[in-house]
């Protein structure tokens, strides 16, 4: 019986290295490719006819488009319009990654801190660059809100700096923890089903419930990841 952590193991499928750095194509990369292919197929094949009155698939693709577009508009406003492709790609990539992870014996690339943190760091750096480009040195005001008494600076500025720099960590760790814990839980409870004979129906029922919950979490965490990105983007564009 495989341990609950085995499902997270990175297995190289093709050894590769560039300039001495290991860039092997792994199961993680394979599932990323799958997610990207599925997202692309979903968004292009369903829109192939581009009908005025959408069918089922086209309707689904349009719903995703409008869902993310509205999320961006509500949280960032019209100034966020040009970041829409990035936000959309981010949401679909993370959500498909999470959902593909629900397939038994698949691999959940979003359960890996390296992937999540790399994404979060790109967002963090990008948002910071956007902030400085729009506001110049005024962007430092982020760390000391206007109107606050000068005496509070000594407490406020460190707190704001810490909260600002903890953004990529909270972003990455939230997704990693949710995905990892969910999958471990499924694996552990699934292990009980066969072990305790007829009583196994109890963990099986629980497992069924948790699976449903995990599907919800898969979508929800993609949403949370994206909406936090939108909020950071809002801060960078409009300050507080």
């Amino acid at each position: 019986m495989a341990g609950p952590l085995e499902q997270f193991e990175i297995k190289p499928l093709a050894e590769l290295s560039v300039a001495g750095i290991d860039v092997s194509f792994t199961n993680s990369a394979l599932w990323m490719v799958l997610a990207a292919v599925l997202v692309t197929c979903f968004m292009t094949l369903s829109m192939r006819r581009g009908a005025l009155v959408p069918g089922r698939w086209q309707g689904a693709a349009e719903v995703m488009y409008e869902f993310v577009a509205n999320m961006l508009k509500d949280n960032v406003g019209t100034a966020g319009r040009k970041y829409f492709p990035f936000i959309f790609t981010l949401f679909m990539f993370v959500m498909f990654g999470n959902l593909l992870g629900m397939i038994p014996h698949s691999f959940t690339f979003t359960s890996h801190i390296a992937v999540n943190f790399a994404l979060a760091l790109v967002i963090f750096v990008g948002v910071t660059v956007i902030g400085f480009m729009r506001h110049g040195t005024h962007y430092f005001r982020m760390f000391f809100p206007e109107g606050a008494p000068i005496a509070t600076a000594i407490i406020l500025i460190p707190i704001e700096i810490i909260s600002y720099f903890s953004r990529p960590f909270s972003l990455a760790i939230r997704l990693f923890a949710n995905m990892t814990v969910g999958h471990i839980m499924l694996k552990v409870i699934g292990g009980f089903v066969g072990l305790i004979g007829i009583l196994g129906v109890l963990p099986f029922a629980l497992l069924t419930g948790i699976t449903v919950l995990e599907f919800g979490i898969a979508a929800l965490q993609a949403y949370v990841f994206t909406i936090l990105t939108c909020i950071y983007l809002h801060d960078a564009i409009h300050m507080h």
Partner: protein
Amino acid sequence: MPQFDLATFSEQIFWLFVIFAVLYMLMSKIALPKVGEVLERRHKTIEDNLGKARALKDETDAAIAKYEAALAEARDAAQADIREATEKAAAEHAAKTEALVKKLSKKTADAEKAIAGAKDDAMKGVADAASDIAREATDKLIGVKVQAKTAEKAVLAIVGE
């Protein structure tokens, strides 16, 4: 925990960036413009149709207003015609009535004159008869023959009172 195996970080991050970048390109260059275009086209079609409907409605409203105006005009004209006809008829009627009245009053006057003439003749006849009776009576009663002229004078003197 495999998640903390630093040896796997470089390969994960490398492929993440490659695949995410490719997906980003596919989305931003191909997939999303198409969706946006379809949504835009639908929005435009709906707007166009609404605009068309609005124009048609305006046209209908204008036609209705025109029709109502024409109707009101026709009604006014008809009423004027009726009034005119009524007035004409009333005038004609009044003229006829007047003529009739005139004719009738003339007839009445003629008749009255005729009656008056007849009455005079009758009165004269009565006087003649009375003088005759008076002469006869005097002749028979006292045997005096009274001249016709005298008797007539005497009768007229009584009747004339």
